């Protein structure tokens, strides 16, 4: 009894039961394909979020006021002051660029429509810290800033909304009741993973904003306030030093002792990235759970098909034994049968799953990322399930005496 004979017997049995063979393969294909596609797309999504945040520059440090609702119920929040910005710029080493921002929601009207937009007052070096690109026109210049010029740079969505396809450069719009001239439009940046999108903002010179737009809400005890200060550290190594220096300066500016909580958040993009990778870890675990479920469902599919045929196959085993098959011959036959089906299903499943992931990539929804470990996980789990549920009943049946197997109902 050699192996070739066994293979021949097994393939003959598979061929004479095409439908059953096909259904078993299908069950494995679905299980494997689901896992490969889901994990591929999930990992792709995670990677794209992480990449986008990393692309913002890990040298970026941002300072903003923290809303505090203390037990005293005062609800007081310290204001980040323009003066803080000046102090940081003057006193902190290891900084490439510092950019103060004041942001407010204001009404914007053109000749045809009026709506609310997020208006940010910035300094001319704003583009050093935020990686927006100018698609048309130019950004705010030193001259605009110093002369309190009424000029604005628009996000791409804003420009589209307000001017409806007309070239916005040189056109006028009113913020509150103050007339501004559009000097530039940002390139479309897409959503930036939870950060405020550059597509929906209007940028004006901070000086003009203080003078004509923000009014008293931007003032605290007679001092100009800020929403955020962005600092670009000279290098990744100086980020931690910049953060601690800024915290010291803020404490002294606001007369806080070391034991008091700092009412400002001073954080680097690297820290944000850390948080984000925790989030993406959770996401991956979640996707893994979904994959495990689809594998389970696929596995149950495989199991069902194989268990349903047990009755018939038990009698077949009885008959084969009755005409002279040894127990080993029976087991080898079933091993080869199930192995053939499981591997066939596994291979097709990997292809189908990869194809689904590729379709996601081609259509631009998500760039799927299929790695070898995903393929191996899906393939080997399905093959294992297929083998187990194919072999176990055969093993049980082969232990029966021929007459018992033949009478099996």
């Amino acid at each position, binding site marked *: *009894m*050699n192996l070739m004979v066994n293979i021949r017997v097994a393939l003959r049995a598979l061929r004479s039961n095409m439908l059953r063979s096909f259904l078993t393969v299908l069950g494995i294909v679905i299980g494997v394909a689901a896992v490969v596609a889901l994990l591929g797309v999930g990992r792709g999504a995670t990677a794209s979020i992480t990449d986008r945040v990393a692309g913002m520059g890990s040298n970026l440090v941002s300072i903003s006021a923290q809303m505090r609702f203390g037990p005293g119920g005062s609800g007081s929040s310290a204001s980040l002051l323009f003066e803080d910005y000046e102090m940081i710029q003057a006193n902190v080493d290891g900084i490439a660029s510092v950019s103060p921002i004041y942001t407010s929601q204001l009404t914007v009207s053109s000749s045809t429509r009026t709506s609310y937009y997020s208006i940010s007052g910035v300094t001319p070096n704003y583009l050093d810290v935020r990686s927006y690109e100018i698609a048309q026109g130019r950004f705010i210049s030193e001259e605009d800033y110093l002369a309190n010029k009424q000029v604005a740079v628009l996000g791409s969505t804003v420009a589209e909304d307000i001017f409806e396809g007309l070239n916005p450069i040189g056109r006028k719009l009113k913020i509150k009741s103050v007339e501004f001239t559009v000097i530039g439009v940002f390139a479309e940046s897409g959503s930036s993973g939870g950060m405020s999108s550059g597509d929906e903002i209007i940028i004006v010179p901070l000086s003009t904003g203080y003078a004509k737009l923000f009014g008293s809400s931007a003032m605290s005890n007679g001092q100009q306030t800020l929403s955020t200060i962005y600092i670009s550290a000279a290098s990744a190594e100086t980020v931690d030093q910049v953060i601690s220096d800024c915290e010291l300066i803020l404490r002294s500016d606001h007369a806080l002792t070391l034991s008091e909580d700092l009412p400002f958040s001073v954080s680097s993009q690297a820290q944000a990235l850390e948080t984000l990778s925790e989030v993406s870890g959770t996401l991956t675990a979640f996707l893994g759970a979904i994959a495990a479920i689809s594998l389970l469902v696929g596995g149950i599919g495989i199991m069902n098909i194989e268990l349903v045929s047990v009755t018939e196959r038990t009698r077949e085993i009885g008959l084969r*034994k009755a005409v002279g*098959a*040894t127990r*080993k011959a029976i087991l080898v036959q079933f091993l080869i049968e199930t192995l053939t089906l499981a591997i066939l299903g596994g291979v097709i499943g990997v292809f189908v799953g990869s194809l689904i992931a590729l379709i996601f990539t081609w259509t631009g929804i998500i760039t799927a990322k299929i790695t070898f470990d995903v393929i191996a996980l899906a393939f080997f789990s399905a093959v294992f399930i297929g083998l187990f549920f194919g072999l176990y009943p055969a093993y049980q049946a082969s232990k029966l005496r021929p007459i018992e197997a*033949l009478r099996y109902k």
Partner: protein
Amino acid sequence: MIEVKDIYKIYKLGDQEVHALDGVSITIRDGEMVSIMGPSGSGKSTLMAILGCLDIPTSGAYYIDGEEVEKMSEDQLANLRAHKIGFVFQQFNLLPRTSALENVMLPLQYDGLNTKLRIEKAKEALEIVGLAERMYHHPNQLSGGQQQRVAIARALVNEPAILLADEPTGNLDSRTGAEIIAMFQKLHKERHQTVVYVTHDSFTARHTERVIHLADGQVKREEIIADPLVAGVSHRPEDNNGYGKAVHVESKKKEKRA
């Protein structure tokens, strides 16, 4: 030669012991044609399964050509089933979705013969049972009688010393049944094939040289038939008189089922 000595087969049903075989001893010589007859529950099918090495007795000795079956390993038993014994079942037990030829080739699959030789032998066996022209038909395309003939061809394909049949006509009408018995008689006469079959019908039983009457798991008597009936020629008597009580018991049962 088959020799069975004081065989018991005891099943446990709850705390009750059922003696399917209760001390059976029989001998079947080479080239003999024998029937084992008895009502249902007499233990005849159990005896047949043991003779065919498909089941093992609770106690007792069983010799095939002088070799003691109980002492054989699983693989030796498989070898015995493959080469010494051809077994025909009441329910035919053909593999579905598989051609007559491949069904007949089944016992040869485990022999490692080359495909050409296996096909040749299977065709020969199908010719013996007169089904050569239907060898590519699947079981569901064959009549009951034809299926049973395929099963006989499968039993013959390894040229076994002993052909055993458990109620081979039980699932067939009387005319087709007669054809099957005629087949056995032909094999016996022309090839000196040892044939043992089980039946509950005394008319069918009387087509052999010797009838072993079984009841309640024991051999009640052995009957030598000096002039066996000839299948397809002899007619079943109207009243079945003189063929024993078993016939009546069975026919009543059949009426009930109908």
